[in-house]
């Protein structure tokens, strides 16, 4: 082997490691900067204030509600996308993904124009006495809007994989589609669903732009932790940083916990892979 050929693989390894190092530094530095700015003792003192606790409680309540709503609404959509073929399916897929690429403020304006008092659907809602903007419900709706795609794409991928392997078997075993979904698809796709749920929750927790636009900013009712950080930032930097650290620690803990709790995937390739073309 010539020296040149020996250098190639080494260069590759070094290049990959360097790139990863840069990425880790870039992602890690802001997080580390947040952490070193606030000593732990002060952290606790800032958290224990009424305003912080209120914002934290509101954030947790709304994000959990939003995640449940996302799962409830998203699962049927994921089921349809994973198992059915129909005209216009691409359009549905894009529509479901859209909130992911839409700037949150734009989403907020859209929600306002749709569900605001003068909005398209808002007028009808107003007639039955329901006014959404400036309420906690608005916070949840904003979070649902931006977090939906995260759950749906994970759930669709998970269901699709399970469906392709086991749906036929279930059907030939007298299982109606509903029974097969409950007893086979859901249990086997559960890891994907949970992962999608975690992503959605994290996104909902961190939601800001759509919230401030659609729900407004009022402590106790609509001021979630990110909003408190942003507004607080402008008067009291230390408090804002402390709140940011709390958000950071909260998200990190939950995401890590979910990752550790996840058992190895339960969908082993049982038997030989089908060789014949269908």
């Amino acid at each position, binding site marked *: 082997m010539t020296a040149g050929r020996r250098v190639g693989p080494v260069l590759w390894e070094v290049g990959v490691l360097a790139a990863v190092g840069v990425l880790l530094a870039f992602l890690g530095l802001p997080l580390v900067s947040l952490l070193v700015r606030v000593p732990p003792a002060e952290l606790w003192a800032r958290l224990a204030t009424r305003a912080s606790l209120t914002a934290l409680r509101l954030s947790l309540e709304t994000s959990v509600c939003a995640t449940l709503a996302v799962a409830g609404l998203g699962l049927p959509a994921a089921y349809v996308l994973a198992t059915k073929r129909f005209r216009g399916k691409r359009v549905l897929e894009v529509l479901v993904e859209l909130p992911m690429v839409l700037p949150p403020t734009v989403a907020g304006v859209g929600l*306002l*124009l749709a569900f*605001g*008092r*003068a909005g398209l659907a808002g007028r009808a809602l107003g007639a039955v006495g329901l006014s959404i*903007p*400036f309420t906690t419900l608005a916070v949840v709706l904003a979070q649902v809007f931006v977090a939906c795609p995260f759950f749906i794409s994970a759930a669709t991928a998970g269901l699709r994989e399970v469906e392709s392997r086991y749906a036929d078997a279930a059907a030939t075993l007298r299982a109606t589609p509903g029974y097969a979904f409950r007893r086979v698809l859901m249990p086997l796709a559960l890891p994907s669903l949970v992962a999608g749920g975690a992503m959605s929750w994290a996104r909902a927790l961190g939601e800001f732009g759509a919230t*401030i636009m659609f*729900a*407004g*900013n*009022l402590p106790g*009712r*609509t*001021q979630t932790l990110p909003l408190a950080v*942003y*507004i607080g*930032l*402008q*008067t009291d*930097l230390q408090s804002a940083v402390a709140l940011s650290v709390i958000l950071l620690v909260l998200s990190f803990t939950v995401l890590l916990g979910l990752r550790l709790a996840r058992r190895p995937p339960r969908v082993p390739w049982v038997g030989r892979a089908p060789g014949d073309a269908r």
Partner: protein
Amino acid sequence: MRVLKRGSWLGAPACLALAVAVHPGGRPRPLVRLPAAPSRTLTVFAAASLTRAFSDLGDSLERRTPGLEVRFNFAGSQQLALQIEQGAAADVFASADQRWMADVRDSGLVEGTPRVFAHNRLVVITPAAAPIAGLRDLARPGLKLVLAADAVPAGRYARAALLNLSRLPGFTAEFGRRALANVVSNEENVKAVVAKVQLGEADAGIVYVSDVTAEVAPRVRRIEVPDAANVVADYPVAVLRHAPDPEDARAFVALLLSPPGQAVLRANGLLAAVGD
């Protein structure tokens, strides 16, 4: 001609060069006159309520000073102060109240003494499609009132004005407290308050008189705040210590304080501070 092969991007400059070379007589004249690249940039951080006025003044200064480009950052004064203190490279800071100017000055970032260049007053706005009847409605239970956040100058002024109204005859002592209980959102700058009222989402909002611009006016109705209760906002301006372009910065401040500048401010709804 070979250079004009389809898809060849070399074709265009080649054509240009050809045209220039072929032009009869002496020095080739360019066919396209490009604007001269700006040699200097002036960065002004200004309160959101100064958007229209300052944009006009910026244009004016650019016209007078060839090679100068004026760039603005409009936001809530509290946000601008934070950015300046965190090291943002700005030449001029114009705040909507003394508090944030003092904050920046206390950080040692102001050159010289800040000058008050304008005043502003508050006004209540309500959606033209569903207006409230009068000031007293602000205390009506269930009313949706939107203010700027307390940290924003407009927000602080508005809260003070509401409390001031409580002391006037014709208003109950409870008025201020009830009105404040009706606040459904604390916006991050005064323009966001204008937007919410324009969209019809809020029943009322308290903003500066200068915020009711020609575009906004058709969609909102004004309810004046009596002078006895109204708050006069002081707008100080200062050149910043680490300004990248202090010369143009001083020129801008001078323009603000000059009669033509004051006229522009007045034309945009602000109250003049100099020679009034």
